[in-house]
């Protein structure tokens, strides 16, 4: 088992403490393509942030490849985020004053890869995602779909074992959404990367092989979806 969660709790402290995750138990195998589905505010992002070691949890255990992820130092967390995990966000989170290729290079910079080598690699990944001609463009000169593909290239460039995507199609139109989901599916099949997609859209969830429903801070139904027929709206479209 690559990812294991046992009884994970998370409360946001504040004037009114908010108990968001109330005992999550979950296992994900290496090479799976799963989605986490739930209503807005159900704690999906919270869970994904814990999986990505962007946030801490209060209780329970989170284990990657048999190693307990708890109480890591900032440096250790940075190491995991840099090498083990790739992140894709709804709002892309590209650095606005860096060009596409510079954005894609950045994770390699934090690995200490030489300037020339990381430029070569970044160009290679942009080429694979059909963005070679856009390498020198800034994010605000690109469409949403292009920006998300740059973000995917940035997530892929370090060969992470796990890719976490938080509403990756949330800011995209239907057609582009389908393209992005197909791209993620292809990566999962061809490279064997574990991909976890958070979404509240059933069409998006339907593109994945397993759908984990989250409700009121605990895991509800888990649907096997290898035939991709869970969507009421057909198998090849994502309704917006």
């Amino acid at each position, binding site marked *: 088992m690559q990812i294991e969660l046992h009884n994970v709790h998370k409360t946001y402290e504040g004037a009114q403490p908010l108990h968001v995750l109330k005992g999550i138990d979950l296992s994900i195998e290496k090479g799976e393509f799963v989605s986490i589905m739930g209503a807005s505010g159900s704690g999906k992002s919270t869970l994904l*942030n814990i999986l*990505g070691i*962007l*946030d801490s949890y209060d209780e329970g255990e989170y284990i990657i490849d048999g190693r307990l992820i708890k109480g890591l130092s*900032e*440096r250790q967390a*940075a*190491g995991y*985020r*840099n*090498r083990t995990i790739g*992140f894709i*966000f*709804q*709002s892309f*989170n*590209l*650095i*606005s*004053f860096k060009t596409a290729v510079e954005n894609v290079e*950045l*994770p390699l*910079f*934090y*690995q200490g890869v030489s*300037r020339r080598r990381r430029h070569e690699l970044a160009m290679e990944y942009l080429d694979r995602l059909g963005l070679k001609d856009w390498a020198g463009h800034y994010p605000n000169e690109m469409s949403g779909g292009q920006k998300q593909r740059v973000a995917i290239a*940035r997530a892929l460039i*370090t060969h992470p074992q796990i890719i976490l995507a938080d509403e990756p199609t949330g800011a995209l139109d239907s057609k582009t959404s389908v393209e992005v989901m197909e791209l993620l599916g292809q990566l999962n099949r061809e490279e064997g990367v574990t991909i976890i997609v958070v979404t509240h859209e059933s069409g998006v969830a339907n593109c994945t092989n397993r759908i984990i429903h989250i409700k009121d801070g605990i895991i509800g139904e888990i649907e096997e979806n290898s035939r991709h027929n869970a969507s009421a709206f057909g198998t090849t479209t994502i309704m917006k």
Partner: protein
Amino acid sequence: MNDLFTEVWESVRRNKLRTCLTGFAVAWGIFMIIVLLGAGNGLMGAFNQGGNEFVSNSMMIGGGSTSKPYKGLKEGRRIRLDMSDMDLMKQEPFSENIDQVTTSHSQSGYALTYGKTHLNNVSLNGTFPGYADMNRIVMLAGRFINEKDIQDKRKVIVLGHLTAKNLLKGGTDYERLLGEQVKVGPFVFRVIGIRKAEENRDDRDLNVPYSTIKTIFGLDNHIDDITFTFHGLPTEEANDAFEKELKAAINTAHDAAPDDASATWVWNRFTQNLQMEKGSKILHTALWIIGLFTLLGGIVGVSNIMLITVKERTHEFGIRKAIGAKPWSIMKLIVAESVTITAFFGYIGMVLGMLACFLMDKTLGQSSMEVFGESIRLLVNPTVGMDVAIEATLVLIIAGTLAGMAPARKAAKVRPIEALRDE
């Protein structure tokens, strides 16, 4: 390194105006430090001018008046030194420290005649051979007065080179005057040497053997003051102890209380120099402190814009951390930017400061004031050396680091989830 500077340049370029305004404050601070230190150096130079005409390890002692009754004698009695005091100083225990003992006596208001040339208002200065060393006299021709001149009361004379030049009608072949006869008032002297005259001063003193003028003017054994050189008194305490002992001995010889402080006076050039150095150090430190406070304004400014920068870039730092930036690599960005801004504008300030010192040297540094017939320069060499430039550079780098520290910490503490939430 290269990558770091690319990042710094990108950030600075996005905030040109803001950076320049703050940078100006830093430049101003360093400019002030350099100009203040330069002016301070010039001032100390002005205090010290003429100071190096004398050897520093010398003292002068003279008679005052008693401040208390002693051995039945009333207070307020005048003490006059005489030749026996000079002998006392050549004996134990003072001879251990004292090298050369001299005194001098001047008679002024004479005319100097050589052939058909007259010079008015010169003075005859009777002295001893030791005078030459004590006053760092440089001979341009011939020799200074020697022991034999003193013993034989020879009528020989040493002229300053400016006087000699006058006698030669502008000529500088001083050798020609050696062995010539000159008249001072009614007295005839033979020229034995030409010495370099003191800078910035009228050259009116003509040196002759003390014994000679004593005879000519029928002086008694009394003398005004005694000047001597010494060795082996390295500290202020040692000097004070020595002065006390010497005064006690001379007081006793004149029937004054040994501890009567006003019966004799001592002027110690060595301790005066020590105090001068101390004063100069204090001035130097004070100027640094004033300068550093001026610079502080600039540093606070840089720290502030770095804080604003961090705030504006929170989202970006969140992204960087999400893709694996360690806290230190974020801190480095901010500290490097802070040091770059501080050092860059600091250097501009330093160069302008040095330029200002240069201008000060060329203007104020060349002007002088007449005081008691001596021209005194207001500032002597008001510039700063390489050492100050290096110190200022260090200050800039430290200041830049300090200015960047708090903002950098803040940047490193950015939590990715908070920075990335709700876009």
